[in-house]
């Protein structure tokens, strides 16, 4: 084959099924005899459960099971096992499930939920992270000291601090003493919802012998299986988790969610399958979100723009649980000064419990949040010392030879943040930003911002891939990495096609994921999918190539070393007209007289993260990052200097992806991510009443971008290969949304001088700042 497979925009796998409405999501699945579940939710942010009376609900015809927290003495969770399946003894946020029903119809389930009577005694709630860390704050988890956690997390018993990551590099006292300027600012941002279009949906069918079969809208079938086994004390091999098409994830479907609840309901309902579908209101109210963040940054900088010291405090508003949130805090801390080299750093990042819906992974895993503070601070510092926002970033940006805050040395194989920054500045003509052509009262502003992120995951994160031949010489590829829109499966098919020199449409990537039949993958998160599974798929392809050659070497009468793979055939290197096709080898090679050798060919490959270490608990030194993807945005805005209304005219976004395996799908990720970041930047954010009730629980009150909102966007692909990435590739799933709020804030500041420190960036807040400056 002569066609270049890597870098080609091969059409997305399963596009036909999706565009015809044939793709079946868990949302669409019905199992014979299936019951419908509904949850009773807490109306209070913090309250003791005095009594729950389920008598009336249980006696309603059509009701098969009613459960409360008393019957479910389990805790579940990813890194810190702090989640109840249904609230036990007390509720910790408004919207927390306190009871659940399984009934023959949705209507009966809803009616039964209404008949459940819960008596509460309200407790003092803590809604603000800064108040939650005070000594006399009400405790969200009184038993924090007794909870299980992964050994790299350190809950502080008797407080609301679920974890504290410390990073210490150099000597900040000396650094600040030498600095020409010291500039300190505080930044905040609210909780935000993923709003995947398919709400969380799960079906469980309990079976004899303590077994269970689950269909779920999850990103990570093996994480669901593992956490369910641990939480409900089941055997891993007795749990089958099936993930069909998933309607968007963005981190919100990582870890474990309602699978334990439907499992327990099915068990209580004599093994009838039970389905739960979150309504959109429940999705906002009872399904975890991106954490809020309070940041305090103190920067020591010299006249020439060199940053000599940085002191940073992050307080993460993790809400009522932190099973996933503790790792957001840790991961973001390791990237905690942005893609810059700063010699003296003291950084403290704390996961804080409050009485609100709880936090989880969201595309970017804490990095959009910290970069809001880091990249806004960079422009505030630049303004204060009178240097260009571009120059200060170039002055301090990471280069080959730089040392990161965890002690990692940046090498030739890392990406280039400064190249991304140069590209976007050029694209928006950053230096040229006067407003002479605009009507009176309108000001043009331009901003730049950088970003970086590495996958956040356990040091021993692994994945694997299987390949098997079909009778006609085509291949099935099986991985339990999931594809809920990223396009990873298409790229993996391209890798197999390139490795085994065959047409990409002859590589069938098995779509539906199933823990019974597929090899393990830790989780589909962190922009590690293509990097890790790509490497595993290369190994599986090489294994298959070797097996093909071993079988073919006998009939071709030569050694394995003399054979090459070309055009779906095994050929003799020196006589390319002597060959055997894949089809003839797939199920075993048969000689003319009927003798056969080989057998059906199956191959495997695996990959485990290389060389990662746990961080030193006191200094944060270690190697947490498999690969860093760097990027930058440039933005042009036009702002009304009287009202604060603004228009984003153009966004340019560049990422050093190492190598784009499928250019069109990389651009798809950039476009989708940038607009998701745009939502965070200018319109999205949870609002609560004073007593902790969520006010933004519909799409009417919680707006996300529509097609009418999108500004002009120029995606730019930079390719400096990553030595250990598949074909040099790095992940770019999360990165496009990082620093979008910061760059818009920077551009608005550039236009009219207002110092925005609160997200989202909305005209009302800009107006307040304009008025305050008068």
């Amino acid at each position, binding site marked *: 084959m002569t066609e270049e497979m890597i870098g080609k*925009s091969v*059409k*997305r796998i*399963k*596009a*036909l*099924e*999706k*565009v*015809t*409405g*044939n*793709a*079946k*999501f868990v*949302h*669409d699945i019905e199992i014979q005899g299936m019951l419908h579940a509904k949850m009773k939710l807490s109306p209070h942010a913090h309250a003791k459960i005095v009594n729950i009376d389920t008598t009336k609900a249980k006696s309603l015809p059509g009701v098969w099971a009613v459960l409360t927290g008393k019957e479910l003495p389990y805790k579940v969770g990813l890194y810190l096992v702090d989640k109840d399946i249904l609230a036990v003894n007390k509720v910790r946020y408004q919207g927390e499930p306190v009871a659940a029903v399984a009934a023959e119809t949705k209507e009966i389930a809803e009616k039964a939920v209404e008949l459940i009577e819960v008596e509460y005694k309200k407790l003092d709630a803590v809604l603000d992270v800064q108040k939650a860390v005070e000594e006399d704050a009400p405790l969200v988890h009184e038993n924090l000291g007794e909870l299980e956690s992964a050994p790299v997390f350190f809950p502080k018993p008797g407080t609301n601090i679920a974890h504290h990551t410390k990073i210490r590099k150099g000597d900040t006292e000396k650094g600040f003493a030498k600095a020409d300027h010291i500039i300190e600012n505080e930044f905040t941002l609210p909780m935000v919802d*993923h*709003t*995947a*279009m*398919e*709400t969380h949906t799960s079906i469980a069918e309990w079976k004899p012998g303590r077994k269970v079969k689950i269909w779920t809208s999850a990103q990570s079938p093996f994480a669901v299986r593992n956490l369910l086994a641990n939480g409900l004390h089941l055997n891993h091999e007795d749990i089958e988790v099936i993930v069909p*098409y*998933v*309607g*968007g*994830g*963005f981190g919100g479907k990582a870890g474990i969610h309602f699978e334990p609840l439907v499992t327990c309901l099915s068990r209580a309902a004599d093994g009838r399958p039970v389905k739960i579908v979150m*309504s*959109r209101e429940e999705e906002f109210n009872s399904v975890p979100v991106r954490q809020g963040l309070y940041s305090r940054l103190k920067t020591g900088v010299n006249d020439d723009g060199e940053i000599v010291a940085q002191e940073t405090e992050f307080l993460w508003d993790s809400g009522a649980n932190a099973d996933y949130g503790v790792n957001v805090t840790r991961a973001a801390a390791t990237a905690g000064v942005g893609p810059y080299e700063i010699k003296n750093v003291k950084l403290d990042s704390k996961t804080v419990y409050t009485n609100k819906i709880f936090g989880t992974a969201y595309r970017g895993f804490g990095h959009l949040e910290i970069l809001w503070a880091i990249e806004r601070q960079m422009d505030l510092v630049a303004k204060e010392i009178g240097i260009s926002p571009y120059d200060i970033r170039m002055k301090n940006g990471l280069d080959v030879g730089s040392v990161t805050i965890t002690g990692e040395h940046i090498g030739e194989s890392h990406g280039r943040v400064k190249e991304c920054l140069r590209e976007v500045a050029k694209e928006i003509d950053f230096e040229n930003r006067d407003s002479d052509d605009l009507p009176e009262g309108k000001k043009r502003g331009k901003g730049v911002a950088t970003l970086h992120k590495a996958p956040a995951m356990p040091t021993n994160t692994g994945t694997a891939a299987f390949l098997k031949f079909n009778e006609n010489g085509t291949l099935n590829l099986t991985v339990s990495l999931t594809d*809920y*829109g*990223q*396009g990873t499966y298409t790229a993996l098919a391209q890798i197999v096609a390139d490795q085994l020199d065959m047409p990409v449409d002859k590589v069938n990537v098995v779509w539906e994921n199933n823990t019974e039949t597929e090899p393990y993958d830790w989780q589909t998160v962190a922009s590690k999918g293509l990097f890790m599974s790509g490497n595993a798929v290369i190994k599986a392809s090489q294994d298959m190539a070797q097996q093909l050659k071993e079988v073919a070497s006998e009939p071709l009468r030569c050694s394995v070393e003399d054979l090459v793979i070309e055009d779906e055939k095994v050929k003799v290197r020196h006589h390319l007209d002597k060959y055997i096709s894949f089809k003839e080898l797939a199920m075993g090679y048969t000689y003319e007289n009927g003798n056969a050798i080989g057998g059906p060919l199956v191959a495997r490959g695996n990959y485990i993260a290389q060389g990662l270490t746990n961080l030193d608990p006191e200094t944060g030194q270690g190697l947490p990052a498999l690969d860093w993807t760097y990027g930058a945005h440039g933005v042009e805005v036009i702002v009304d200097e009287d009202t604060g209304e603004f228009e984003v005219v153009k966004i340019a976004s560049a990422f050093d992806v190492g190598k784009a395996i499928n250019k*069109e*799908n990389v*651009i*798809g990720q950039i*476009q*989708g*991510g*940038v*607009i*998701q970041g745009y939502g965070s930047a200018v319109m999205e954010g949870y609002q609560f009443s004073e007593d902790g009730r969520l006010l933004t629980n*519909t*799409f*009417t009150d919680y707006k*996300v*971008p*529509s*097609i*009418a909102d*999108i500004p002009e*966007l120029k995606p730019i692909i930079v390719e400096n290969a990553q030595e250990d990435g598949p074909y040099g590739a790095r992940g770019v799933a999360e990165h496009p949304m990082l620093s979008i709020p910061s760059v818009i804030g920077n551009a608005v500041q550039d236009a009219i001088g207002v110092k925005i420190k609160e997200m989202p960036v909305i005209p009302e807040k800009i107006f307040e700042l304009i008025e305050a400056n008068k």
Partner: protein
Amino acid sequence: MKTINFTVNGRNYKLDVKDNEILLDVLREKLHFTGAKEGCGEGECGACTVIMDGKAVTSCIILAVEADGSDIETIEGQSVGEEISDIQEAFIEENAIQCGFCTPGMVMSTKALLDRNPDPSDEDIDIALSGNICRCTGYYSIRNAVKRAAEKKGGSQS
């Protein structure tokens, strides 16, 4: 209970529905047209879009009894055997599909638009599709797909 008559993708249906039954639920649960999805249940996200008597509607806020006597088109009626429509083809060619959950609704809103306006401007497209939320693509490829579909339709007419 009330008896209603309507057509879905040209096929006649007569069925008994409750007064408060929602059209989307009837289509999905009784007739098994599961292409239309429920993304919000309040007419805000467009995942449930079908065409009723030529107009794109959010079927999650329409009562089944309101559909009595109407002609309904769903995503399932847009392809015949292996043949997909120009619009569907354009969505694939422009890579306007990621997770796919919003796609049926997007295709139906596009069809309703192009049926009444074969040559839409960017603004026409934005107005017609602003009720369809997609959280994956950022909409650029969807806008391009609508334009490409319009070109294809123009091409087949001339």
